[in-house]
């Protein structure tokens, strides 16, 4: 059971959170081309290494936040500061 460093609660079992996948900025819907929009919807970097991703502390503080995890080793780094309004999201 992975320990996820929730910026508000502290380290929590991954079962307490919902995994939100890669963190990417939403394109401007007014100007996005189909290719850009569908790239946002479907294409993923999926690296074997450091990845910026979203988590939702479902059983804890109920805050969404983004941090970096190494997908090969499951280490975490760069969690946002507690109370960060955008949860550190891109």
């Amino acid at each position, binding site marked *: 059971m992975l320990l996820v460093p929730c910026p508000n609660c502290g380290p929590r079992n991954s079962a307490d959170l919902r995994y939100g996948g890669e963190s990417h900025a939403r394109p401007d819907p007014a100007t996005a081309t189909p290719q850009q929009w569908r790239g946002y919807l479907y294409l993923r970097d999926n690296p074997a290494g450091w990845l910026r991703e979203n988590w939702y502390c479902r*059983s*804890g503080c*109920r805050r969404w936040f983004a941090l970096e995890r190494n997908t090969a080793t499951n280490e975490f780094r760069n969690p946002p500061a507690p*109370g960060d309004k955008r949860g550190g999201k891109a």
Partner: protein
Amino acid sequence: MAESPAFESPVVRSYEFSSGGPLMLTDASPTTKWLVRGEVGGAAAERLDAPFGSSRDAGGGALVLGSRPGEWIVLGPADAVASVVAGLDGLDSSEFLTALDWTHGRALFLVTGTDAPRMLEKVCSLDWSDAMTPDGAVASASVAKVTCDIARHDDDGTPAYMIFCDRSFGQYLFDALIDAGNEFGLSVGPAGP
């Protein structure tokens, strides 16, 4: 609310009550509970003085639980809770602040006894040690697979925990707690706020 009918608890099965025992489970669902939302570090936060994870006795039997960042549960006797909530009126008006009566939305159970941590570690993955969950601590976690708010509020030195869950899970969770407590000689106390 004077003419209102009696409060119906979510725990509807009947149990053999015991008034004392080494490990007690009590249904306190009728207790008045309000949910207050404000800003982290705002005026309400300062007034309520219970940062996320901690709690504070607000007088008159009312307790303020720092249940989430910028979020508090105020519970206790109705008048005492009302006075805490009323005390937030007239704070800096630029703060976005709301309060709602959550009495009907949340079931509340009390678990009291020396073995309470041992019982809870059967149904919840939190670390119940005094260092990690001291008297006064507030947390949210899954208890028997139901997301609950939990507050430790010792009873005269005996570990005691308040467990809040969505009302509709109340009967299920009450029974799950009884099962978990059986091996420690748990008894069910009469319901009451």
